[in-house]
């Protein structure tokens, strides 16, 4: 999947995903602009420029809310995983919509003075010391910068170049961006609009994001209790709990996660983190000795952690042993791509 970089990796599923996204955006903007302007209840008449700015702003808020719901939903229920599949394109489109909102605002509210419009944006309101009339634009600028960083670093090259943990850490900017967007909306349009619909929509969306993140985090926290057995060997599960073709995931002391697979009666262990975006390999099924990452379809041989040729991704492998009907894994990872002889599950005690 990374043999040579190309501008955009599209396949049939991604085309469908992107088409659905585009239809959704166009439908939302059409409803906002043409179908239901009366229902928006603008107490004061607004011109088309402001109407457009509000339409794109509302669309960006909704898209960002949906994007942030996808991650915890997928962690809570695997049926939402297809939504995660092409979330990067969702993010790029959200950035484009948010930029459109920003340009409509700039070219209306700040375009008709003798000052440069970008300067005007920064100095038109500097009442940072008071809540009423706070320059909420600053939150929008911050969120837009974050979205631009996330969108422009969405290519697979950045994942490999920065490494997945650095890339993931960078993309944690989505959270401060969302908080800033909530502040931008709350101190901006919510101060002006008295109709209850908008506050209800904003509060419902923001509450859903918060509640889903709390639920997913608590679920992971409760399930991720490492069971160290002393020394370098960590208890994974009883051999009777293993199902052929599937994995058990164990968290090692230090936080790394290992996926232990049963494949044709023999055990193999690789890192649970896919080399692509650190997707949960342990949730994939093994076919012909290859496990498929449930997030984006990257495959690895479970005996050596290598993607099948011509692909070049590798993940670390781990040594295993079976002891008194218990699967044990060594906490020290082997370098990515290291072959480890699979361990037969039906044996009293084997060291590898």
């Amino acid at each position, binding site marked *: 999947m*990374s*043999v*040579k*970089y*190309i501008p955009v990796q599209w396949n049939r599923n991604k085309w469908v995903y992107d088409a659905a996204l585009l239809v959704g955006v166009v439908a939302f903007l059409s409803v906002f602009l043409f179908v239901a302007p009366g229902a928006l209840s603008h*107490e004061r008449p607004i011109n088309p420029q402001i109407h457009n700015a509000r339409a794109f702003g509302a669309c960006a808020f909704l898209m960002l809310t949906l994007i942030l719901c996808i991650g915890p939903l997928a962690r809570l229920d695997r049926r939402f995983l297809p939504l995660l599949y092409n979330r990067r394109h969702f993010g790029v489109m959200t950035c484009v919509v948010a930029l459109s909102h920003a340009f409509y605002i700039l070219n209306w509210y700040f375009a008709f003075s003798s000052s*440069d419009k*970008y*300067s005007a944006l*920064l*100095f038109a309101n500097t009442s940072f010391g008071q*809540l*009423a009339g706070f320059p909420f634009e600053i939150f929008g600028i911050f969120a837009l*910068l974050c979205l*631009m*960083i996330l969108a*422009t*670093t969405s*290519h697979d*090259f*950045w994942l*490999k*170049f*920065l*490494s*997945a*943990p*650095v890339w*993931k*850490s*960078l993309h*944690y900017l989505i*959270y401060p961006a*969302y*908080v800033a967007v*909530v*502040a931008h909306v*709350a101190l901006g349009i*919510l*101060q002006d609009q008295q109709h209850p619909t908008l*506050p209800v929509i904003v*509060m419902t969306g*923001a*509450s859903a*994001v*918060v509640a889903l*993140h*709390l639920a*997913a*985090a*608590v679920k*992971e926290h409760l399930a991720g209790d490492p069971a160290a057995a002393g020394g370098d060997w960590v208890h994974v599960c009883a051999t009777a709990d293993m199902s052929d073709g599937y994995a058990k995931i164990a968290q090692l002391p230090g*936080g*790394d996660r290992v996926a232990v697979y049963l494949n044709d009666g023999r055990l193999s262990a690789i890192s649970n*983190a896919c080399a692509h975006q*650190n997707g949960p390999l342990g949730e994939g099924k093994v076919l012909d000795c290859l496990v498929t990452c449930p997030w984006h379809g990257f495959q690895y041989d479970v005996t050596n952690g290598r993607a099948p040729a011509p692909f070049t991704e590798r*993940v*670390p492998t781990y040594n295993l042993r079976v002891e008194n009907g218990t699967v044990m894994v060594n906490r020290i*990872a082997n370098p*990515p791509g290291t072959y480890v002889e699979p361990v037969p599950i039906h044996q009293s005690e084997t060291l590898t």
Partner: protein
Amino acid sequence: MTAADTILAFAQLWGVVGAAIALAFLTIGIDRIDEDAREAYVFRPLLIPAILLIWPLVLWRWWVLETGRDQWARRHRPPRAAHLKVAVVMAVLVPAILITALAQRQDWPADIAPLRLGQPAEVSE
């Protein structure tokens, strides 16, 4: 020079430095540190906006990869442990922002009885 002008001048300087680094990285550096990028040129312009934005990070990673300081084990340690902290921080900040903003929202002028600011036209005439 106003504060706004200073910020914009800084942003322009940031962009100019980023452009220079993008030129060097995309013509020389990328081939040296990533075998998958060799002989792949069409995707490179897509990287320019990100380099303009995060060029200090690009310089750091370029140096790490050029000098062989990259540690393979770290590539497989995603920062998932932060999920709970993020959820808790958002659960505090988001409601606090919404409640504070809605609490200080002012009444709409339409709810206030109108005041006559001048004499009726026929009287003034």
